[in-house]
């Protein structure tokens, strides 16, 4: 498929835990995302969302299966993949003693942004309304501001693909709303946003297509409309439970 920006085929990630033994965190998952869409990975905590996203971002190596981003195989050219993505997760922190502006400049340089870095940084600061805080050290910013700077950092080198792992966790309503607006804007600019959440309402509101994931397995993929149609449920939450029960009955 020419227009797929992210292609994941039969992805399996197994790791061995001393306490639990062999854990199949991701178990044979296949999906693909297109440019200009927000693709939501929806599932409860521990479903395998973060492991999937970390594998796509090459932080983890898949046990088997393939991951391709912009046509680049993650196993063969992890640096090539990282060049075309921006990755955010709750475990990716900023440098506390750099200011917001320095942080953005640093990540633009390190990711090899080819345009005018100064101009790009000012643009993003303006877009996210960071102006008055741009020269404050990150460790003196509020949680909401930090998350905004993090999101800006993810996108600073203007990558075609953004991978965001629960970007609104821990935020109040207003800050979460601002982050969601920013994600929509990025989609409108033609980027692919692969995004995970355990909040049904957020997925409903934001995502063009949704994959429901539970215990490392994919329960269903499609637009909100398609999932509604398939389950006969109006709300995503009910659809999720129905899919889960159906899977239980099958197994």
């Amino acid at each position, binding site marked *: 498929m020419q227009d797929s920006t992210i292609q994941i085929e039969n992805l399996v990630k197994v790791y061995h835990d001393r306490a639990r033994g062999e854990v199949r965190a991701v178990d044979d998952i296949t999906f693909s995302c297109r440019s200009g869409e927000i693709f939501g990975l929806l599932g409860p905590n521990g479903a395998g969302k973060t492991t999937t996203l970390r594998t796509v971002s090459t932080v983890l190596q898949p046990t088997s299966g393939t991951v391709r981003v912009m046509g680049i195989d993650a196993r063969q050219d992890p640096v090539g993949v990282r060049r075309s993505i921006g990755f955010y997760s709750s475990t990716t922190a900023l440098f506390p*003693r750099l200011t917001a502006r320095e942080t953005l400049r640093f990540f633009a340089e390190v990711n*090899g942004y080819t345009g005018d870095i100064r101009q790009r940084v000012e643009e993003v600061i303006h877009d996210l309304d960071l102006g008055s805080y741009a020269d404050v050290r990150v460790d003196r910013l509020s949680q909401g501001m930090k998350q905004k700077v993090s999101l800006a950092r993810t996108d600073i080198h203007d990558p075609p693909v953004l991978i965001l792992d629960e970007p609104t966790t821990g935020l109040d309503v207003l800050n979460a709303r601002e982050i969601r607006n920013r994600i929509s804007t990025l989609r409108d600019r033609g980027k692919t946003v692969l995004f995970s959440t355990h909040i049904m309402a957020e997925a409903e509101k934001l995502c063009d297509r949704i994959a429901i994931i539970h215990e490392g397995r994919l329960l269903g993929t499609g637009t909100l409309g398609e999932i509604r149609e398939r389950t006969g449920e109006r709300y995503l939450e009910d659809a999720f439970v129905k899919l889960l029960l159906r899977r239980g009955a099958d197994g």
Partner: protein
Amino acid sequence: MADRSGRLSRISSVFLYQIRSVLRDRRTIFLAFVLPLLIVPAMILLSGWITDVREEQRESVEIEYAVAGPHSERAANMVRLAGQHTAENDTLTSLALKEETPDSPLSSLADGELHLVVRLVRSSKIHGEGESGTSKTPMLVLYYRGDSDESGWAMEELGSALEGLRAAQRRELLLSSAAVTEPDSFMALQLTDLAPEGRAAAYTIGRLTTLFVLFFILAGGSVVAMDLVAGERERGSLETLLTTSVTRRELAFSKQLIVLAIALSICILQVLNLLLYTSLGLLESPLAEAAISPARLILVLLLLLPVAFLASGILLLISSRARSYREAQILLFPVVLLGAVPAAAPLIPGISLGSVALVIPVANIALAVRGVLTGGVNPTLAAVSWIITGGAGIAVSLWSAKLMGSSLSPEADVLPSSPVQLRLRLFSKSAPRAFLPMFALVLVSSSLFSDDLALQIIANTVLILLGGSLLLLRRYRLPLRETLGLQLPSPFIWPFLGAAVPAGIVLSSHIYRLSTALFPTSARMMEEMYARGIGLDAPLWQLLLLGAIVPAVCEEAAFRGVLLGSVRRTVGSASAIIISSLVFGLFHMTAVRFLPTAFLGLMLGLSVVLTGSLLPAIVWHALNNALALMLSGTSLDPTSPGTLPTLAAAATVAAAFYVMARTRSAPSPQVALDKRHRGDG
């Protein structure tokens, strides 16, 4: 490559932004820069103050003493006379004496109520036996307590006063009786230190500089290094970096540059500090007499560069290995202690650069630094030290690059899926470590059986090396044949190997010459060694068995079978060949044999990696030893082959390796075992 400039700019970005971040941490600035700068003058001031205070206390002490024994009246008189003598003589400070009369003087001294007890005895044996007239010489015995400062001072003061009194009395006696001339015209004594002025101080500084600088680098650099990987891993910013276009190697390299920059600044600051106190004499101290020239200090700084590099690499390695900041700090302590050991080499009496110390990183630099500050150093040896310590620094930094990303992912905890794989993995972790106790045992047995070469060979090779290897295999229940790689290689290699043996000896004779140039004093020792070896005076078969076959089998099993095989799984073939060769060289104990042995190890290691079998190495090793034994018995001297024979020899060895590589049938021993058991269990 087009990416090269990108790589440089990524490294410089990480370096610049991270160092900015580091320098904004006040804690780091204080611990790394301010504290060390304060410590040196503080130490000088403190030691001066302590000396002053002690001197003052010493002068103000009133010596409380008691006399004891049968001649107590006379003893008391002598003490009083000594006191008067000091009062009359201005070269001595006058003594403040106070006589006490306790019931039991010695027990009062023991209880701390007295400083001294003086007892006069008449000794019959003070001077040499047979001297007449001395048999009734009175002797004053001073009892004091070594565990009390004041009692010790009292002993010294009264002792020297009594000495002065004795000299004065003797002089008077001489003048009044037989002496025709003034007694002083007979002989005067003056002690003169011939060492150039300040040399003693320079010697002290020279011995301690590396240790001090290393200590400050480790102390200051550790704050930065622990934060840069372990701290960032804990905070999450390391993962952020790992999801950017920066590769792990670039990241490790730039982080090491940061630690190195900090370490070097500390280094320069300390050397400047030294300059300030020694050249400008800002503070009064005996060390200030050293007057070390700035040119020498710059040389010292250059010599210390690889130490700073290695130290920063080690700090980063600890930081990369630890899963948390806390764990890094726990790991740090033993490393700082261990790191101090080689840097203290110049304190060991009699040690010089032309010994095995040359191959020990840091120790060699410490010795070179001492040389520079106290006189001279052989430039070749200093350069070799520089390269060895710098090389160790590079190896450590590559290692930490590997570790940096690993503990981020759960893969660090992945358990292998079969028991054999698990045991192989544990084996490859612990086998290299087992060579440390083996080395200690070989050291002990070599000194234990230094008279009996045959016994020494059997103890070292059969018992320690082969025994140790077999114990390891048994401990991890690994099959002998497959783990060591005892399968037959292609028959085609044997004739080529046969030709490679003498060719290898020709090549290693050059290494031997280089080695004797580096260790000139050891040539005589080498001759002695050979003489002893031949002096075995044993039949030929025994000579070949003990000198060639037994060492070949046992050493190959240990160094190529166990060590190379296990290290290879963690660091790759090339590094494993080098590491196993260096260890092989070290096990031969003498400095002059280190390089030639390591070179033989390189060839043998390569043969194992190329053929996938240990057998060619065993045969090569045995033939090599046998040939060397025979050559040393004849007058044929292989030490200086010409260019043409050398080229021919190199071509022969290369041809042998080529054939080995082309005819290879079996995969590497432990790799094959690992693959075969993957997935079962």
